[in-house]
């Protein structure tokens, strides 16, 4: 079945079975391999992408269910101020260990900061509990999200803070 998908602002035409997981389309058809396969059962968060701004587990999202929605992957993280601040904080604090889960962690973190500009530790722990890290980088992830939030707050024009 031929279907058009809007991925990171670019329209792609793909010819796949309509029950194909979005994750396979991203990785194997489009070649966007930043999004990772983790558990395959929507429990680890490694495959997180944004669909119309909502974080979604792409391993259990059929391509049919996406329709005309706008898909954003880790490859487009740097196109937003929130994404750039997160990338900087991730590097500053050397969050990554093996790195496998980190694209999903960053996409969930971006969704968190888009909805909550000043998250508390509890907010972060709750939202990020959907992303598992076998290296145990949770403490650094939390610190990096707080640093990014602070940077975004600092750079916001006076009166919008």
């Amino acid at each position, binding site marked *: 079945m031929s279907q058009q998908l809007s991925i990171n602002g670019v329209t792609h035409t793909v010819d796949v079975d309509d029950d194909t997981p979005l994750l396979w389309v991203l990785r194997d058809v489009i070649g966007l391999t930043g999004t990772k396969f983790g558990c395959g059962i929507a429990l680890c968060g490694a495959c997180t992408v944004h669909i119309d701004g909502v974080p979604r*587990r792409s391993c259990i999202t059929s391509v049919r269910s996406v329709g005309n929605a706008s898909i954003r992957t880790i490859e487009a993280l740097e196109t937003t101020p929130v994404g750039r601040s997160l990338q900087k904080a991730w590097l500053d604090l050397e969050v990554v260990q093996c790195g496998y889960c980190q694209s999903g962690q960053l996409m969930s973190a971006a969704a968190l900061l888009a909805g909550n500009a000043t998250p508390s530790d509890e907010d972060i722990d709750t*939202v990020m509990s959907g992303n598992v890290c076998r290296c145990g980088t949770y403490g650094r992830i939390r610190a990096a999200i707080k640093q990014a939030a602070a940077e975004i707050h600092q750079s916001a024009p006076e009166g919008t803070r």
Partner: protein
Amino acid sequence: MKCAHAVALVGVLLAATTVADTPLEPLRSPQEFDSIRDRAARSKAYFTEAAKVLQHPRCLNCHPATRSPTQGDDLHPHVPLVQAGPENKGTKELPCSSCHGAANAATLGARVKSIPGNDHWSLAPASMAWQGLTTAEICEQIKDPKRNGNRTLAQLEKHLAEDPLVGWAWDPGEGRAPAPGTQQVFGQLISAWIKTGAHCENRSR
């Protein structure tokens, strides 16, 4: 907290290996209660039978005692630890729709065979918490407009008998035991309960 999540995650994976292929539980039809001559007693018996559905894990998991759902036949904490949020559909940052789509979805893993889904997937409001309540307490709650979404008994019957999200309990996706009987028989029991006065058992535990 992360340790708790890890333990819960292991629980999910272990539970998933034992839940599948559970034999379907029967649900008796209203006609099977015709021998109860006392109208109030028959009404209570209808509700007690219908409560096999209300007290089933497919229903209880999203009618939790707290503002976080549970999972599995053992009602373990939901992984991840999602919150109801302002509209009972999760928070903006971690909505239910991160994992639960418009229909049940097959997974790429063997131990959890499907992720539940429905167009109206959401958590029951706090006033409709059922976990920890007796059948008698649920009976009183479910007919109380202050706690049942301001529904009349007729609206309640329609909701339970026809709502697609209620109906999900009988079509919960591969690897998950459905609620007893069918939504049709469940609706008939609720209808019979209402027609006989919507009586509840005494609340003593």
